[in-house]
């Protein structure tokens, strides 16, 4: 039996369980069909067993952390954002919260009053077809590679958020995935829509403090910044255990809109993600920053494909990686300027910090311009920490490992400094722990 037929079987099962409308099922089947035809991404494990994956994706499972498995710093975050203790240990559902001191249910009401829709993706497919139907898998396309198709066919769980025109959400909306069957699904899908002239900062914290219940995580996300909207997305991922993390992502930015995306990824053993971001609108803007830290024998394929289609659109892309032990990274940063896009600007920077002689980094910048009227630049550095900086700190009395820690935190600080302080602290804690265990 072909892989596509196997996937189809499970896609139908999931769709039935979720009581989806007909069009959603058809989209799944189309994706299943595509699986056999599209290429495998380089990060697809050679021994990938599509049937085993599909079976598990269709299954429901509950996971809860055991006693003492939640680290203190993580609890501190949950405390700060007002998640009650009892829910911290076994929470089922999205935790929505704002800032640092308000209880999350109150904020859910606040968002409702503004007309913001925030619910699970599965519900949104049933209840908000007007918003979802024309967008689903248009930013995260099913034909990019096999994982993109597989995700779309077996999509389940995830978060949906819609911000109505001109609504500005004054606080960051935090979807903190604690431990839940829905949000920690293998194939969850996140869709964020910032409608015309709206503003929102969505923080997706998937700092899972316990080993994930699956070995391959194939989540997906789609971000839509409609005309003149400003959409800020910060996503934090920390995978514990032998997890292959291969999210499929895409975004579309319309006229005069701005998308600011920050992705911070830790953990896992194999990471593969190359989102496609299309700047379709005139004078649309993108700021895309990513931070990764690789250790042990982790392998990572990173970078983004940014397509500038709108006149006067601009993009700034920065990637910073810290590599330890025998890790491997291939960064492919691709910037494409379409023919009709005049007066565009794009700057791409990729900086890698090598903290080990055995880590291997390959950086491939790819700038494609189909118009003469584009300003494109790429800047890449691969290197170790500066000897003079290390000596300077040691001469102040800091031990070498402390100096390494300070400079490594410093290396990523410029990209994370605008996040709420709880998250900055969390990221710094994770970096410290990773360095400590190396």
């Amino acid at each position, binding site marked *: 039996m072909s892989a596509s037929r196997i996937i189809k079987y499970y896609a139908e099962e999931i769709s039935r369980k979720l009581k989806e409308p007909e069009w959603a099922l058809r989209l799944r089947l189309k994706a299943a069909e595509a699986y056999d035809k599209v290429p495998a991404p380089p990060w697809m494990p050679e021994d990938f067993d599509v049937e085993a994956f599909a079976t598990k994706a269709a299954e429901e499972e509950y996971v809860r952390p055991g006693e003492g498995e939640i680290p203190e710093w993580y609890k501190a975050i949950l405390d700060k954002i007002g998640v009650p203790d009892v829910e911290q240990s076994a929470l089922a559902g999205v935790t929505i919260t704002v800032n640092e001191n308000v209880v999350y249910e109150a904020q859910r009401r606040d968002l409702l009053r503004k007309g913001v829709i925030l619910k699970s993706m599965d519900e949104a497919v049933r209840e908000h077809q007007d918003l979802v139907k024309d967008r689903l898998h248009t930013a995260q396309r099913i034909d990019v590679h096999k994982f993109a198709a597989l995700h779309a066919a077996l999509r389940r769980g995830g978060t949906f958020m819609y911000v109505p025109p001109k609504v500005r959400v004054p606080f960051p909306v935090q979807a903190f995935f604690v431990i839940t069957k829905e949000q920690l699904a293998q194939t969850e899908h996140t869709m964020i829509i910032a409608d015309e002239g709206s503003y929102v900062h969505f923080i997706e914290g998937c700092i899972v403090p316990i080993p994930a219940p699956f070995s391959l995580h194939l989540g997906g996300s789609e971000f839509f910044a409609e005309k003149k909207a400003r959409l800020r997305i910060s996503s934090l991922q920390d995978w514990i255990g032998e997890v292959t993390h291969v999210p499929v992502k895409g975004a579309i930015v319309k006229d005069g809109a701005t998308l600011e995306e920050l992705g911070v990824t830790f953990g896992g053993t194999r990471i593969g993600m190359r989102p496609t971001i299309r700047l379709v609108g005139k004078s649309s803007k993108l700021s895309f920053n990513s931070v990764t830290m690789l250790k042990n024998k982790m392998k990572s394929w990173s970078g983004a494909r940014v397509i500038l289609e709108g006149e006067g659109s601009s993009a700034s892309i920065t990637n910073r990686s810290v590599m330890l032990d025998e890790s491997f990274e291939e960064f492919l940063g691709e910037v494409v300027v379409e023919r009709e896009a005049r007066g565009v600007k794009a700057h791409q920077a990729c900086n890698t910090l090598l903290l080990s002689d055995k880590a291997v980094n390959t950086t491939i910048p790819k700038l494609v311009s189909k118009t003469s009227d584009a300003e494109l630049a790429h800047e890449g550095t691969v290197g170790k920490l*500066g*000897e*003079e*900086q290390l*000596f*300077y*700190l*040691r*001469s*102040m*009395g*800091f*031990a*070498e490992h*402390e100096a390494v820690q*300070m*400079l490594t*935190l*410093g*290396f*990523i*600080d*410029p990209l994370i400094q605008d996040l709420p302080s709880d998250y900055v602290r969390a990221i710094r804690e994770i970096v410290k722990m990773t360095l400590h265990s190396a």
Partner: protein
Amino acid sequence: MNRMSDVEGLEVIDLWVKVGDKLILKGVNLKLPKGEFHALVGPNGAGKSTLAMTIAGHPAYKVVRGDILLDGESIKDLDPEERAKRGLAVLFQHPPELEGVRVAELFEKLREMYGGEKLEDLLKLVGLPGDIAFRYVNVGFSGGERKRFDLARIIAMKPKIVIMDEPDSGVDMESVKRIAEGIKKLLDMGAGVLVITHYRNILKYITPKMVHVMIDGRIVKSGGPELLEIIEAKGFSGVVA
């Protein structure tokens, strides 16, 4: 550890130092007791900065002979951080930028280690604005800001012995004055301070007890501040004639 001398402070004994294959210091002898202010002068390339870096413990500077004692104990084979913890602080000629490391964060850690003064007081002392606390260390700092900052972090270390490598180069006069005040503060705290200076600007604001003249890797003359006038009139070679 055995005490090799009774001198309270820094003692450099017959120090020979190589950088790569090149012999730079050729038998330096120097004593800097606590609480005293000394100046080390000499032409470019005499080895003044090499002496500072060697005392600080920079791995590129290899001691081939001789010793460095702090309060009578050898620090020659210690890591730079160990030397700092024992009370040695070095002001860098070109303090490097520490991207991503904020001034406030650095001082918080120094305070944990040494328990010194509060950052806002230190900044006031060296005449830096309070908002510098949120900036990255030395990133975008002017020449004067860099040296004032470095002086503040040295005071935060509550050192016994301070070596300052050209604190008065590349800075405005206001900064030179501030640095001179900082040296007085360090002396009040009981530290011994050695200033390496090429320009001698700083010595207009604070008079050294001793002046050491270094030429070609050796200290060729040590004496009182009157040496400075001879150098002024006859140049460095004048002091050995």
